[in-house]
């Protein structure tokens, strides 16, 4: 047996071949396209063009070309798009690993480049493989709160996605026709060594005896995906959460009673003390073109209160089912300070640190009758961990824009 991986005979698995690689490639073509689109939607959902406090990527330039006012309907929109983004990403990991395994002999192809185009294609593959793994790794680490990557997750995952996507599109354009032809012509039969004049660098010239059929290998990859999917998808539904046994925000709900649903950041983690949220100390400051109003919680309770059934949906891909919130409408609070037409609002939390202690909401979000400054949830007062004394809740907005422990609302064009 040759000792060097640069020799084609070194690679002996009889599984490798154009059919296996083409199948995995086409699955990734569809899957990664969905990941990219849902990722772009998540980016738009933060309304980064509304205010610098929402924008973790001020250098985006042309990459923000498609941004639009994020809607409030349907109210589960972000729960769906971000749930798909994270759950599908985790589900695709076995497919990605199998695809990389299936093409690894090509990494060692000699000569390193047959032409300028070939040399550039191989350089592009570094961006494809490195960029792709970078996106998957930063995503998987971020949902586990393991912030060991070199910088802000939002910036790394966003710009990294565009670098990866640039290489992904080139690779897809160059390879998809071949992959489709391979699947059509090979139909699961053992692959020919030479295919249409293109040198087949995948099929081993010296295959070892098989220990698994090709169908078995596809089954193993699919089984891995199914296992990850089955132990992850439950984190988007309160009734299924128990099934997400290894995923963050899976398993049990925190505590019990009306506030027993998932918490992104606890009051203790955010550094909120009871002395500043007590009935005596806490005042909500509402500012607008009509002046400034200071309201105690008792005064807020005398405003017309409304209910809305809305979920919390996190960028990390977990979500709660709809919770029944009750509080003052944001548009009523705007009217209190002279804004009868819907306008933007700048929300400030009592939090002293944290990337989203300030957030901006757009006029369409403020104007939605379900957008509340919530005081109650599930028929009881908000718990400290859910933002007592008052928090924002807006339909279809990413979780962190539903600011907790609100101290000040400033209405007006941003």
């Amino acid at each position, binding site marked *: 047996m040759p000792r060097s991986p640069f020799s084609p005979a070194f690679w002996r698995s009889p599984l490798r071949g154009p059919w296996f690689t083409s199948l995995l490639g086409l699955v990734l073509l569809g899957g990664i396209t969905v990941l990219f689109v849902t990722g772009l939607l998540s980016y738009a959902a933060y309304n980064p063009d509304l205010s610098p406090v929402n924008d973790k990527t001020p250098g985006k330039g042309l990459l923000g070309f498609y941004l639009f006012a994020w809607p409030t309907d349907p109210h589960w929109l972000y729960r769906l798009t971000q749930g798909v983004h994270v759950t599908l990403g985790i589900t695709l990991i076995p497919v990605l690993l199998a695809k990389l395994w299936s093409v690894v002999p090509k990494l060692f192809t000699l000569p390193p480049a047959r032409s300028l*185009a070939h040399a*550039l294609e191989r350089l*592009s593959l570094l961006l494809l*493989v490195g960029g792709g793994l970078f996106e998957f790794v930063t995503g998987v680490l971020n949902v586990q709160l393991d912030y060991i990557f070199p910088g802000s997750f939002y910036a790394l995952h966003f710009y990294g996605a565009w670098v990866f996507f640039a290489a992904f599109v080139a690779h897809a354009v160059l390879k998809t026709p071949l992959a489709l032809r391979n699947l059509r012509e090979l139909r699961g039969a053992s692959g020919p060594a030479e295919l249409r004049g293109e040198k087949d660098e995948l099929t081993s010239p010296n295959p070892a005896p098989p220990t698994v059929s090709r169908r078995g290998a596809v089954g193993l990859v699919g089984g891995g995906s199914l*296992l990850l999917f089955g132990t992850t998808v439950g984190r988007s539904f309160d009734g299924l959460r128990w099934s997400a046994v290894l995923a963050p925000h899976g398993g049990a709900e925190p505590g019990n009673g009306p506030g027993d649903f998932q918490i992104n950041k*606890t009051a203790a983690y955010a550094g909120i003390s009871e002395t500043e949220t007590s009935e005596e100390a806490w005042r909500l400051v509402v500012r607008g073109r009509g002046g400034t109003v200071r309201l105690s919680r008792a005064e807020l309770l005398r405003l017309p209160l409304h209910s809305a059934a809305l979920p919390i949906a996190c960028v990390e891909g977990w979500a709660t089912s709809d919770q029944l919130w009750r509080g003052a409408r944001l548009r009523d609070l705007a009217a209190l300070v002279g804004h009868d037409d819907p306008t933007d609002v700048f929300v400030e939390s009592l939090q002293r640190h944290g990337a989203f202690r300030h957030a901006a909401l757009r006029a369409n979000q403020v104007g939605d009758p379900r957008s509340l400054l919530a005081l109650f949830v599930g028929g009881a007062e908000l718990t400290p961990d859910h933002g007592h004394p008052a928090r924002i809740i807006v339909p279809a907005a990413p979780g962190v824009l539903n600011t907790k422990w609100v101290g000040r609302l400033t209405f007006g064009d941003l």
Partner: protein
Amino acid sequence: MRPRFQLGSTFQLLLLACSFALAAYAGVQLLARDWFGVALWIVGVALLHDLVLLPLYAAADRALVRAAGPRRRAVMYVRVPAALSGLLLLVWFPLIGGEVAGRYTSATGLSADGFATRWLLLTAVLFGGSALLYVLLHAVRLRRATKERPSADH
């Protein structure tokens, strides 16, 4: 005569030029803060996968096949649960290994205990189920083989 270095397909060159232009446009921002750290991660994660993770699991698989010797049929009954268990560990190692336990509990109010236990339990279920399946299918095969064997009396 030395072979002349070819340019290659014009379409491919144009496509790759567009791809590199977009990658460079985003890459400037990606590398704006900590260019060395980010470049190290992108190259490092590719090398770590291609030159460490893949050779490791390929070597483990080769060792398994060698250990199985003539019982090739048995290989899958070890390979499948080992691969699935390894996959879960690869994806969830920060929680299973407990390295984010402190932050996880203080941020979410959820217990960070039990990830390792649940992973071990799942691993046990995977291997146990696989062993059970092997025994059952083996028994069926044995019985079928005994039935089909021509009797010595005839």
